[in-house]
């Protein structure tokens, strides 16, 4: 074992102090994650126990303030999953094609403009997305589809698909740029067109990076609360139609937290726990995808 020695010179002291500060900063993040995890489980589990795990996760009715309260979160879980999947269905193709365009096809001038726009898009606060969604998208959805109210699952999907674009685009562009030019040159030399090369060589070669971008986007979509709350209608309905007013996991918590008490409040923490688990799973998935990608390249 290394013998511990006191620092002698002022420079060594400074070094030691700085090291301690770096260490503390590093520990802070780890500590926060640990505290949050422990807290989520401690505060989320009791209500699940009281309500019953099956009744809680698979109950189809949520009426937290009724005289006989019902705490079934299946509508929230399904809405969150459908909303996220729907957003990916729109966001992934658009994002991927944007990335191919930016990485391979765009003229430098055009590229700069589009890259700047995508970066700006990622910087727009979600409440602004929500506001625009509420004022423009919701009435538009009502008008286009001839519905009385446009605050529904579809509006949430559209808003989310725009919100996840930047993460998909920027990560995919990086991945596509990293594809060795020899691959593409080889393909072109064999007579393939540009388009064939991009779809058959570049995208497969960059697939792990693209997958990481998609998972990142999904993480953003499932965790979004503000924008969703402003466009989704927020009634605790089962998402049996695109035009149904629905509540996501995030909005269920945000909506009721301010006045909740007793078991209702505990149940909200349980929803947070479910959401937390969802996001943990997505992060683990992201790590797995990134690691798998690294192995491919070796």
């Amino acid at each position, binding site marked *: 074992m290394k013998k511990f020695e006191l620092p002698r010179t002022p420079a060594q002291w400074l070094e030691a102090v700085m090291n301690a500060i770096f260490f503390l900063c590093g520990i802070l993040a780890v500590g926060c994650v640990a505290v949050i995890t422990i807290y989520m489980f401690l505060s989320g589990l009791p209500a699940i126990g009281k309500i019953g795990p099956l009744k809680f996760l698979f109950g189809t009715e949520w009426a937290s303030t009724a005289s006989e309260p019902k705490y079934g979160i299946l509508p929230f879980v399904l809405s969150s999953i459908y909303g996220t999947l729907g957003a990916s269905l729109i966001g992934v193709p658009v994002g991927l094609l944007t990335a191919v365009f930016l990485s391979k096809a765009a003229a430098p001038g055009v590229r700069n403009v589009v890259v700047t726009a995508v970066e700006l898009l990622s910087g727009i606060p979600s409440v602004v997305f929500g506001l625009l969604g509420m004022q423009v998208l919701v009435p538009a959805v009502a008008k286009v589809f001839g519905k009385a109210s446009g605050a529904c699952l579809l509006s949430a999907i559209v808003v989310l698909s725009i919100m996840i674009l930047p993460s998909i685009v920027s990560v995919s562009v990086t991945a596509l740029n990293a594809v060795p030019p020899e691959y593409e040159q080889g393909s072109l030399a064999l007579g393939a067109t540009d388009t064939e090369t991009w779809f058959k060589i570049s995208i497969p070669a960059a697939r792990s990076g693209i997958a990481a971008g998609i998972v990142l986007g999904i993480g953003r979509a499932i965790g979004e609360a503000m924008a969703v709350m402003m466009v989704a209608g927020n*009634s605790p309905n089962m998402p049996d139609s695109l035009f149904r007013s629905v509540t996501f996991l995030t909005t269920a918590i945000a909506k009721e*937290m301010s006045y909740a008490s007793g078991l209702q409040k505990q149940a909200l923490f349980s929803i947070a726990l479910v959401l937390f688990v969802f996001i943990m799973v997505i992060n683990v998935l992201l790590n797995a995808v990134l690691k798998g990608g690294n192995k491919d390249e070796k």
Partner: protein
Amino acid sequence: MMKKITRRSFLSICGVAAAAAALTACGGAASSTAASSAAASSTAASASSTAALSGNVATGGSTSMKNVIAALTEGFAEIEPDVTISYDPTGSGAGITGATDKTLDIGLSSRALKADETGVTGTIVALDGIAIIVNKDSKVEDLTVDQLKQMFTGEITNWSEVGGDDGEIVLVGREAGSGTRDGFESIVDVKDSCKYAQELTATGAVISAVEANPLAIGYASLSAIGDTVKAVTVGGVECSEETVKDGSYEVQRPFVFVTNDSVTLSAQAQAFFDFATSTDAADLIRTAGAVPVNE
């Protein structure tokens, strides 16, 4: 919570909210013991308003009275800075029970006392008028409570059935737990059976949703209504401070201070009670969105 919520900050917000909840819970427990000791050592100091009071006044009950109590507490702190007012939002029923079993100095109820709730006295400090709002383009000018009931439970789904243009009725309401929702649903007798198209978390959000959709109907506190939406008359009576006060506007409910008949209020509790029912409190109550009864 008008705040951007990212994945990570969302989790930390939950943590903070929970910590706050834990603190409130502690406060509630402490205040009830303080209340009983205060009740024991009461009586003597009654009229000596010049002497500075101290101690705790335990109130609790109706969640809808949150804003009114907050405004009154703030105003009272300027007169008696050493008195703390605790408030436990547990619901009107719990507020009345708290006054009955003497765990609260003043129970808060947003409904009148029932005949079988004896041993306690209710004093109305304010009235809560809930306006029924529709889009400015709507042709509907008047609705009865019965029509409202049928509309909000989904029995009437088209505006043409209540005198408007043809079109599906879009119900806009507040989230579960909101005092306005509780008030509206209990007055119109549609508790837990409303088929909302939108549930929003703020009065302002309800108003702007109704403003944006010509087929929407919603409800909001009387004080919050501006020019952007139209408040319909209910049973021919316009929603205004006067009609709420004289009782002719139906969609209203009282905010009641409930006190136990067999206990004399502590000096500080009596002072708060007197302040809340005095004319000085009228403006505070009005800023909190309710209609004062004593001016």
